[in-house]
């Protein structure tokens, strides 16, 4: 094993927290193999000290006028070029939208495999014999054990599958600028503009999410859920059945194809808990299921449950909260 290279995901110069997950995943592998951890930064970075704190020994700072903002092709080709120069054995990024996209682009350019959303690579991987890895399928509902045959192993680490932690010791990383040769045509996929969303609590960061499923029956039925969410400083979420019926916008969907939530409390009302939805809700710290069916998957997987009709239970909870507040 030669080097281990981690792609640093920055957004307008700011390192994204997911990168530290990839570094935390990479560090013990590098330590076991006795190799150093390299990192690629495309364009500007506000703070490369944080990379050192997470065990990076060498920072490759790609400098090019076409790296002024994110572009999947400019980043992917930059990564491919660095891989050809430093010949790492293993290349990693966090399996975010952009992490997977950039690794896929680099792998496509190099004509090698790329394995997305891994949880583990075996020790045999270091011997470059029978490399085995475990990755997630179905948004995390199923595991796949796989072999990876490639001159350079390119994998992403399933996002949120581990907690980022800094290294025990850190030193000043060696920062090496490098200038990739980027074809001018690749400017075609660089971000041209940004639309800024209204600030406020988002579904992904809300401390409380009040979710409704098929049993809601209509768009109007969400009014009590809105009220409860508002009383708790949270947001309303919903299942795919709800967005497919047009009762709520897709931006409210919790699930494999919607938003992954991680609130302190998720109140899942009238939600059966199909795989599609559970995958988006499973990171919640506490789940309270409100369902008429005591055998519903969501009830079985929840920490707490109320067996009953959400259309009666939720208004009763709101009344009780108001009653106590008035006291």
């Amino acid at each position: 094993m030669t080097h281990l290279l981690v792609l640093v995901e920055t957004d307008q110069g700011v390192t994204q927290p997911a990168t530290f997950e990839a570094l935390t995943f990479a560090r013990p592998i590098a330590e076991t193999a006795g190799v150093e951890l390299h990192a690629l930064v495309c364009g500007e970075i506000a703070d490369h000290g944080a990379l050192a704190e997470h065990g990076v020994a060498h920072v490759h700072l790609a400098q090019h006028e076409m790296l002024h903002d994110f572009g999947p092709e400019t980043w992917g080709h930059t990564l491919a070029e660095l891989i050809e120069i430093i010949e790492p054995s293993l290349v990693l990024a966090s399996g975010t939208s952009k992490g997977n996209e950039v690794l896929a682009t680099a792998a496509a350019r190099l004509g090698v495999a790329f394995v997305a959303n891994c949880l583990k690579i075996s020790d045999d991987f270091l011997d470059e014999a029978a490399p085995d890895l475990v990755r997630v399928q179905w948004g995390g509902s199923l595991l796949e054990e796989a072999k990876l045959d490639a001159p350079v192993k390119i994998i992403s680490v399933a996002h949120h599958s581990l907690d980022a932690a800094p290294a025990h010791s850190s030193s000043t990383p060696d920062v090496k600028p490098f200038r990739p040769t980027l074809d001018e045509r690749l400017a075609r996929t660089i971000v041209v503009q940004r639309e800024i969303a209204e600030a406020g609590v988002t579904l992904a960061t809300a401390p409380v999410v009040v979710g409704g499923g098929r049993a809601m029956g209509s768009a109007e039925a969400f009014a009590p859920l809105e009220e409860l969410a508002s009383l708790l400083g949270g947001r309303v979420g919903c299942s795919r059945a709800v967005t497919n019926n047009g009762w709520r916008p897709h931006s409210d969907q919790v699930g494999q194809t919607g938003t992954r939530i991680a609130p302190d409390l998720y109140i899942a009302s009238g939600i059966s808990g199909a795989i599609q939805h559970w995958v988006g809700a499973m990171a919640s710290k506490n789940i309270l299921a409100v369902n008429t069916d005591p055998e519903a998957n969501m009830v079985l997987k929840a920490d707490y449950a109320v067996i009953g009709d959400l259309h009666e239970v939720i208004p009763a909870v709101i009344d009780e909260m108001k009653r106590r507040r008035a006291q």
Partner: protein
Amino acid sequence: MKVLVCVKRVPSPGSLINITADGQDVDATHLGFAMSPHEECAVEEAIRLVEQHGGESTVLTVGPPEAEEQLRYSASLGVQRAVLVRTDGRPWDPQRTAQAISTAIETIEAANGPFDLILFGNESADAGGFQVGVRVANSLDRPMVNAIKDIEVDPAASTCTAKREVDGGREVYQLPTPAVLGVKEGLNLPRYPTMKGRLASKKTEVAVLDIQSQPGGQQRLRLAQPPTTTSNTITLGEGPAAAPDVVDLLEQLALL
């Protein structure tokens, strides 16, 4: 304009996914099949773009003969042409799938001219390799951006504007066509087939292609269930009478 949508036939699981005895695949004995959710939006977008700008939409899948079901479903919604790249039914790795799709596209384009836009789902619902669209775009040397939730095409200028949701807002991309986009659910609200559409789709000709392709570097050994997350659910009560216990819980979790 000409739009191609690539879809994948996947099982539709409920609350449990079973694995076959040999561990090689999902046991779909009692499951229905659908295309991946992101792709339903890709199909809808292709139909809308053709409704708006004129032209023709085509749906393509790599899969077993049964995947014709997803092609005909697309046709029932309004997609005009359907192409099946036939496999033996065993799952193909992402490199192999991409290679087959690229070759199929080259074959179709050689006869009918280039697609202005090729749409993929952001990732398949099952294997979730996050790369087939990227690889196809790379092999065809076309621009590609993933995770798109808004598309506008300007056929006169040969450009398309695509938006991607990120933390704190949206990034805007402007790609020259022909281009490739990976889309996410939420791009639109897909329509349901009409009776007339269903009947018409039975007559849609499905072009079948057999394409030589080589396995890539990722090889599935087996599927496995993740460690079970059993929860000893505490039942707070039944019906509206449980409200005080729920509010006690909110207090206990310091949420009030």
